[in-house]
């Protein structure tokens, strides 16, 4: 073997193992994060954490029951406002659209998907909080819904497009209207994929902090109804993590573990059970 060949071969081996190392490093980051959270937050997860309100500042104990419920309510609103619009918009793109409008909508959706969440917070503040003169669960829900729409829309579209042509033609041949064909044949055929998209979009906004800072704001107590400020897990984690109290830090770790656990479990369940090689790649 010539020296040059040896060089080439060893470069080959070296570079290939380097790429392997890159992959290993990236992947292990997740396990590291998860492990570290379990290690730090696991021991402070107690029944109180899920059932109690926060204790007065500087006193030990208390829980995050209000933040957990607050986060659920915010997600509910995000789903209620965001999913129908995204879903119907997706149907339009896949089934009705001409040329210009769908192109515009599609491109806008992709771009809106990348708009920083803090900007959505400012938008919702100007749109909802200022005119209503109230921080509220509602305002937070709107901010999150705006983030849900583009994802659901694009995802619905791509799954509808995946429905085989033969299915539609069969339906048309039976004399069905177009909307009937969509409602009874196309949407059910794509329902799994669409549901996947919806759940992943919700899992993504569940962890959002920035858009809630000045919309849902915060609350030390339960937030009745929809027109009051509410606590939410991500915001509480942020406040507690940057605070000085040992007890806050412990609770921040526990809350972080709960949040990460919920997000990851949703992702894993959805990705393994609902999809098999779908067009929906990632959140």
């Amino acid at each position, binding site marked *: 073997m010539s020296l040059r060949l040896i060089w080439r071969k060893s470069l080959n081996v070296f570079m290939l193992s380097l790429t392997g190392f890159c992959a290993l490093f990236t992947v292990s980051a997740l396990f590291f994060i998860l492990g570290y959270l379990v290690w730090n937050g696991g021991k402070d997860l107690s029944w109180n954490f899920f059932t109690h309100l926060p204790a007065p*500042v*500087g006193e030990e104990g208390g829980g995050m029951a209000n933040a957990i419920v607050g986060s659920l*309510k915010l997600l509910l609103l995000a789903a209620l406002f965001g999913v129908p619009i995204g879903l119907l918009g997706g149907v339009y793109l896949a089934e009705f659209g001409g040329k210009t409008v769908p192109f515009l909508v599609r491109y806008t959706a992709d771009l809106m998907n990348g708009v920083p969440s803090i900007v959505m917070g400012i938008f919702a503040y100007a749109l909802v909080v200022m005119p209503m003169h109230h*921080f509220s669960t509602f305002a937070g829900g709107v901010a999150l819904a705006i983030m849900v729409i583009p994802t659901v829309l694009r995802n619905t579209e791509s799954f509808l497009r995946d429905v085989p042509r033969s299915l539609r033609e069969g339906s048309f041949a039976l004399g069905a209207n177009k909307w009937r064909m969509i409602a009874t044949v196309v949407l059910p055929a794509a329902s799994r994929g669409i549901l996947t998209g919806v759940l992943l979009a919700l899992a993504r906004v569940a962890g959002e902090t920035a858009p809630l800072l000045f919309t849902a704001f915060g609350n030390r107590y339960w937030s009745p109804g*929809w027109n009051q400020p509410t606590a939410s897990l991500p915001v509480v984690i942020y406040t507690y993590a940057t*605070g*000085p109290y040992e007890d806050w830090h412990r609770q921040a770790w526990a809350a972080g573990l709960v949040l990460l656990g919920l997000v990851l479990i949703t992702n894993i369940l959805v990705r393994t059970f609902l999809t098999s090689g779908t067009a929906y790649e990632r959140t």
Partner: protein
Amino acid sequence: MRLVKKLSLLVGLLMVATLATAQGQVLLNAAGATFPFPMYSKWFDLYKQAHPNVQINYQSIGSGGGIRQLIDKTVDFGASDGPMTDEQLKQATVPILHFPTVMGADVPSYNVPGVSAELNFTPEALAGIFLGKITKWNDPAITSANSGVKLPGDDIVVVHRSDGSGTTYIFTDYLSKVSPEWQKKVGKATSVNWPVGLGGKGNEGVAGLIQQTPDSIGYIELIYAVQNKIAYGRVKNAAGVFVKADLAGVTAAAAAAAKSMPDDFRVSITDPEGNKAAYPISSFTWLLIPSKIADPAKRDAVKGFLKWMMTDGQQYCEGLAYAKLPKEVVVKELKAIAQIQ
């Protein structure tokens, strides 16, 4: 579609659950100063226990935030450690009343590894450090007031607030009084253009940063230093005495102001003249209450709380290292409650 049914059931349950608790409750939202947050959070909790139908949600977003959100009318009342400026008062659609609640102190707290002694700070040293002119812990301006303490030659890490803050207002108000250079270059406000340092959000954030950063110094409300066991130093007052922040020092600082309290309660008690016991970086902290509250239930709740806070509530102050209001001030304030309509 079974899933849809289950989901709608969940939605329904949540809605019912959240509406049920809303019956007959008065919900007040307030935001502002982090300086008195431990006190307020305790008060609002106690008040809720005594009056279960009144729930006051206080968010400690900083005094600047309290003022802004009050002007935007997104909260029922605000709280601040710096009185509102005339310009800010003009922005509000209804006249805003200031109600002093407690008095507290900003303390220069530090985290210098290896130094366990209480440090003495002259006004010049504090101004120099926060102006970025004194950059080492063993600078003569610091060591001259601390003979016998071995200070390291490390860089000083200045920590300040990143948000609009009354704690900042008090501190910069003090520095403006003791340092002409500070007044010219930086001035006093709830947020200023800091010459040096790291920013932390809220008293909580600054205290957290000091704890985590060796060789740091920052200014925080006394209770945050006490609760988190962060070292804090004595400050030289106008009479030339190094005073450690405590209740007596704060009360002494307010003594003169209490006798000649202006009608709008907007008064600064930093660096008072001539009182040897006074701690020089002290201040009142205020609740900012709109003079017109349209909803009678809310109005009564606010008035009720104010009254309770000035009378029964004051007994809890000292447990949290805040100084009680002087008697003269309480009398004057109780009269002022009637101005809320």
